[in-house]
């Protein structure tokens, strides 16, 4: 049972260090009437809405760089409900919510009881009664945020559900790619790895194709099969086909335990056939950037050299992550 009274930690926005403004006044300000109460996946967003998220994130990034403090979420209580271990996404959301002036509570959810499916709705109802207005939900089961959104009168931001969706990751990836490539229209983006189990990949397929890119998938057959008829998506038989003339390449974290599931005979063979290095990328467009949602298994899906090279946008993805989550929270709070 969740003990909200004693279990949570409350962090207040640091008072010092910036200019507090009430609402961004530039052209990129969110137009009133953002039609979505929740962010469950990017599939709910039109192309214009996707672009609006990206534009607002750019503005958030600049304001953050100028150390401005925004109070768009003053009075809001954002609960971080991470029912699955996560550090990067959780910290990114926490920084984003604090940067907007929200009160942030970290919810000490017993991961084991939630993954048993016993108490998600019950837990969230309790939180709602204690004043939480937005829940950032990370959950091991696909579709859990839909259950939450139907059951509890709070805003739900999906921070990753099972193999299904990770909308803020897809948005920050789209922003990172737009920064690097200008527009995504007509671009070829390759995604390499375990697409089938990847919520990052699924949300990216929605976002990137909606923004006009074609996406090529490569990886062991068991991990890429089934996506063939997704509009704008191509499943490559060979890694080289996916990488050829690619404008950008994204590789995914290999879940080390998945080799037992029959996807690949060994990590060694995975790396030999699908691991990314500079040589393999020679067939892509010159200087084509490389993305990875992190954390990387260096030497498995990507070499340490490549991950640290100038082509790597992994650092930019992290920076954009906070800005994008600020943009999303600001839009939903309207």
């Amino acid at each position, binding site marked *: 049972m969740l003990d909200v009274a004693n279990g949570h930690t409350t962090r207040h926005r640091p008072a010092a260090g910036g200019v507090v403004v009430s609402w961004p006044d530039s052209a990129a300000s969110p137009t009133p009437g953002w039609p979505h109460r929740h962010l469950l996946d990017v599939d709910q967003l039109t192309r214009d809405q996707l672009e609006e998220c990206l534009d607002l994130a750019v503005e958030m990034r600049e304001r953050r760089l100028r150390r401005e403090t925004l109070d768009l979420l003053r009075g809001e209580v954002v609960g971080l409900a991470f029912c699955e271990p996560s550090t990067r996404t959780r910290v990114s959301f926490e920084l984003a919510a604090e940067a907007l002036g929200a009160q942030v509570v970290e919810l000490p959810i017993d991961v084991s009881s939630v993954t*048993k499916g016993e108490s998600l709705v019950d837990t969230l109802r309790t939180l709602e009664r204690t004043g939480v207005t937005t829940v950032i939900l990370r959950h091991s089961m696909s579709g859990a945020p839909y259950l939450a*959104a139907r059951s509890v009168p709070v805003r739900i931001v999906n921070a990753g559900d099972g193999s299904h969706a990770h909308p803020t990751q897809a948005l920050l990836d789209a922003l990172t790619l737009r920064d690097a490539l200008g527009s995504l229209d007509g671009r070829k983006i390759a995604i390499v790895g375990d697409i089938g189990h990847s919520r990052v990949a699924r949300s990216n397929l929605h976002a990137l194709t909606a923004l006009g890119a074609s996406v090529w998938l490569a990886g062991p057959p068991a991990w890429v099969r089934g996506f063939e008829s997704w509009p704008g998506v191509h499943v490559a038989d060979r890694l080289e086909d996916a990488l050829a003339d690619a404008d950008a390449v994204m590789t995914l974290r290999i879940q080390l335990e998945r080799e037992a599931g029959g996807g690949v005979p060994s990590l060694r063979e995975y790396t030999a056939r699908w691991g990314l290095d500079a040589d393999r990328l020679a067939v892509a467009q010159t200087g084509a950037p490389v993305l990875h949602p992190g954390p990387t298994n260096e030497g498995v899906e990507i070499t340490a050299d490549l991950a640290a090279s100038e082509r790597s946008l992994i650092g930019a993805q992290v920076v954009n992550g906070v800005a994008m989550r600020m943009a999303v929270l600001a839009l939903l709070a309207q």
Partner: protein
Amino acid sequence: MSSFGSLGDLAATFVLTGARVIDPSTDADAVRDLAVADGLLVDPATVPSDAPRLDGSGLVVGPGLCDLHVHLREPGMERAETVESGARAAAHGGFTTICAMPNTDPPLDEPARVAMVLDRARNRACRVRVIAAATRGREGERITEIGELAGMGIAGVSDDGSVVASARVARGLLAYLAPLGLPLIEHAEDPALSTGSVMRAGETATRLGLAGWPASAELSIVERDIALADETGGWVHFTHLSTEGGLNAIRRARERGVRVTCDVTPHHLALTDAWVAGWRGFSWEEPGGVAADPFGAPLDAELAYDPACRVNPPLSSRAEALALLAGVADGSIDAIATDHAPHPRERKGVEFGAAAPGMIGLETALSLGLAAVEAGSLQLRSLLAALSTRPAGLIGETRTLANGALADLVVFDPAARWLVEAPALASASSNTPLLGMELPGVVRMTVAGGRITYRDGLGAIG
């Protein structure tokens, strides 16, 4: 005003005038008067003049429905259903016989437990037959005392909920059952292929990021058991068949004389895997939204991942549902059986992957079938045969509307519509994705063994 009766009531006497009487056992289909005197079907001219006369115009009379696959949850999960509430749900749905599956807690794997359920089933609103566990504890190792159980009138044996995983045990069961004339009722699912999966593999599962079990998980067991039945002379009955491949294997086996039968659920005929993504159209309707565009269409946040759509075997693709419907139409599927699987709210109001599999079906089976008939996808006579005469024949019961027989029938209004909602259901549970939908087909009266077990809008029980 609806009311329930029971098999312990006085035998009924009434005349139903001007109803369409369909009797698949004789291929009869005519508008006529139908009379029951002291529980027996008789010539209307012979009924005493003071017998209640009921207006049957616009109504259809068919033989009492027979469900080969029902979970009554007693003992062990009486919050979800009891023998009593399940029997009422059956009568409300037009059923006069239901077969209770043995995966209760504890399971019905020994004569005393079977006797207990049969005792509780006496004088309810529906006949209740028991299917005994095939193996002790449903553990798939030692077979139950089938000889003694056969003497108690069981309808067959099954480890439903699980397959008999060991081919050696399945072979032994088929051999032991053969001289008893009882079927091994098999839940065809190879766990090596399905473990961890929560829906049918396919584009919808890929879209939703849900692990999908491939059709081969059913086919591999169907092929295995056909080989075993062929060798032993035993009778295998595949319940809740859900794949076209499985159906074709059964057709081929039957052609060469293997004793194999099968049933399909109403939801595998009418619903599709797109329901998990939030689509709410029947298989025979033109797909739209996420059913037509499984990757591109946005999910409906209100309906996507509805745990009520989690069933095992999982809902099939539209193409497979239509192939199964064709199997009912051409007779290669012997029966429609509901796999009525009640669950309390706490086992369904959870994440899709954590939800207990199964949906209730006794009170919506006829309506879903009638929706298919209305759409022109199934003949009414084929529907009634698959819901009554043919399953009844598999468990040694007869269904006929000929004079002289004990009255065992359902009277329904095929055109009237009803709203599926919890208060309208006699089941103790309401786990079905059909809640909130209006379906055709309202049962006006159910008569089991000459007794009126359910009546709605046809006057007081006389």
